[in-house]
C-alpha cells in the first residue's frame, strides 16, 4: 500500500509547527509528501517557493510551482511519478542488496526489460491512497475552482488503475482553533462523488500548514492501517484475476 499526501498551497505557512518537520514526520511513517504551489498573477515570493521545495524534499516527494490552468495535469503527473519513483527506489535497493549493482541502468537491456515489466505491473496494481490537503486561506479563493477540477481529475485517473486506489480531501485552516484542518471527503475512488467540495468554506487568513499536515498523517494512520489488514486476507482473490495479468505477460523482448 502506497500512501501519499498532496499539499496544494500558494504561499508560506504562518501558524504553528514547521511544515518541513511535519513532512519529515510523515515520510518517517511511510507517507510521501508532494507539494503543488499555485500562482496566477505575480510571484509566489522567494520564501514561499523555498518552503514548498523544502517540504517536498523533507517528505520524500516532488514539488512544482504552476498556474491554476496547469494544476490538473501537474497533480496527476506528480502522483504518477511518485508511484513510479517509490517502486523504482524499492527495486533498486533490492538490486543493490542482491546483486551489488547500483540501479536498473547497470543491467544489460534484456535483463532491464524483464525488471521494468515487473515494476510496471506493480505501478498499475499496487494499492494507492492519496490524501489531498488544500490551502483555503483567503488568497487561494480565486483558485479553488481549479483545485476542485484537479481533485476530480486525479480521482478519475486513480480510478482507472487496476490496483485498489482511493482519494480523500482536506482543507485548512479549520473552523476552530483546535481544528487545524477539516475533512471534506473521506476515502473514495468514485470521481462522480467528488462534487462541489468547497462550497461553504469561510476563507480565513491563517495558514497552519504544519499542524494541518500532522492532522492528515493521523487520519491516514487511523484509517489505512485497517485497509492493509483486510488486504492481506484478500490477496488470493487478486491472484485469480488472471485476465489483466495475462496481458502483461505477453511482453516479450
Amino acid at each position, binding site marked *: 500500500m502506497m500512501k501519499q499526501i498532496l499539499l496544494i498551497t500558494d504561499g508560506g505557512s504562518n501558524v504553528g509547527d514547521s511544515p518541513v518537520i511535519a513532512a519529515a514526520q510523515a515520510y518517517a511513517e511511510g507517507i510521501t509528501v508532494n507539494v503543488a504551489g499555485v500562482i496566477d498573477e505575480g510571484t509566489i515570493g522567494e520564501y514561499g517557493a523555498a518552503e514548498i521545495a523544502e517540504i517536498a524534499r523533507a517528505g520524500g516527494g516532488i514539488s512544482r510551482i504552476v498556474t491554476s490552468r496547469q494544476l490538473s495535469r501537474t497533480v496527476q503527473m506528480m502522483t504518477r511519478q511518485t508511484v513510479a519513483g517509490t517502486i523504482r527506489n524499492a527495486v533498486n535497493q533490492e538490486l543493490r542488496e542482491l546483486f551489488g549493482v547500483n540501479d536498473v*541502468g547497470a543491467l544489460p*537491456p534484456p535483463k*532491464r526489460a524483464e525488471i*521494468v515489466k515487473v515494476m510496471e505491473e506493480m505501478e498499475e496494481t499496487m494499492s494507492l491512497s492519496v490524501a489531498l490537503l488544500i490551502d483555503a486561506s483567503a488568497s487561494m479563493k480565486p483558485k479553488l475552482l481549479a483545485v476542485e477540477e484537479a481533485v476530480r*481529475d486525479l480521482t*478519475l*485517473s486513480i480510478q*482507472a488503475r*487496476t490496483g485498489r486506489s482511493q482519494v480523500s480531501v482536506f482543507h485548512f485552516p479549520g473552523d476552530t482553533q483546535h481544528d487545524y484542518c477539516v475533512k471534506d471527503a473521506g476515502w473514495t475512488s468514485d470521481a462522480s462523488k467528488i462534487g462541489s467540495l468547497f462550497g461553504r468554506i469561510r476563507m480565513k487568513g491563517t495558514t497552519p500548514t504544519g499542524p494541518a499536515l500532522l492532522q492528515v498523517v493521523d487520519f491516514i494512520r487511523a484509517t489505512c492501517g485497517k485497509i492493509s489488514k483486510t488486504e492481506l486476507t484478500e490477496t488470493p482473490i487478486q491472484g485469480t484475476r488472471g485476465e489483466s495479468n495475462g496481458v502483461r505477460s505477453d511482453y516479450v523482448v
Partner: protein
Amino acid sequence: MTTSSNEQRPLPKGTEIRGRWNGKQYRLERLLGLGSNGHVYLASSGIGYRSACAVKLGFETSELQGEANILASLDSSEKGRVPFLLDVDDAVIDGKNIPYYVMRYIPGSPIQAYLRQHGPQWLGVVGFRLLERLAQLHEAGWAFGDIKSDNVLVGEYGRVELVDYGGASAIGRSVRQFTEIYDRGYWFAGSRIADPAYDHFSVAMLWLHALEGKRLVQLTRTLLPQNRHPRELMKLVRSNARLAPLESWMEKALNGKFENTKEASEEWRSVFRSSQRLKAPEDRVPRWMAGLLGGAILLSVSATAVWLLQ
C-alpha cells in the same frame, strides 16, 4: 527521489553515439521532437551511415525501457509487418550513461498540417486509414491512448502512420499517456481505462481540432469544468459545414457508441461515400424532363379520351 527537472539540452547535429552493450553506432542528424521524458532524433546508422532511423534518448532508464517493452510487445503481437523496435542500448555522453532505443523512422507530416496543406477533401481517406490502423492495434489488444495531431503522421496520398507508441496501453489498464483536450475524462465522457472507445473519442476530437480548432480552444477556455460534456462538442460539429455531414459518426464516437473499431471505420466510409454520391448531378432526373414526360402522358391520355368518345 529529488525535485530535479527533466530539462536537458538537445545534442548537436552530427553527434555520434555508440551503444555500450550492442556496439551499434548512430549519427544524430536532426531533432524530431522534444518529449516529457526524452528527445527523438532522426539518425543514420549502418555502413556509411546510409540507413535512416529514429533514436529516442531518454532521461530515466526504466521509463524508457518501459516504452521499448511496449514496442517489442507490439512487434510480437502484430506479426507480419516491419518491426518498430530496432535496438535498445546506452550511450556514454560526457561520462554519463544515457539510455536510448532505436525505432523505424517514419516520414510524414502531422495530420493537421497535412489537411491544411492538401485540403480537407482528404479527410475521408486519411480518416479511413487512421481507423483501419487503430482497428489492427485494438485487435492486438492495445489502445493507442495519446491520439493527437503530432502523433498521426500522413505521408504520400493520405497514408497514415501512428508514432509514439510508447504511450500505448494494454486494453483494460489505465491510459498511460494522454493530452488533455483529447481525453474523454476531461470531457466527462468516460473513464481513463484503455479501451477502443477511448481512441474513438480522441479521433473525433482530432477532427474537431483540425477543422474547428479556434472555437474548440475558445470553448475549453470559457466553459466551466462541470459543464464539459460531449453535447457541447456536438454543437461545434453541427455548426461546421465540413463536420455537419459527420454528425452521426461524431455523436457515436464522442459517446462511446461504436461496438468496435471496424464498425467505426465502416461507418466513416459510408458517410463519405454517400456525400460523394449526393453531389453527382446525373443521379437525379431534372425537373424539366419530368415535366415534359408528364405533359406527354397527359396529352396522349386526353387524345385517347377524345378519340374514344367520338
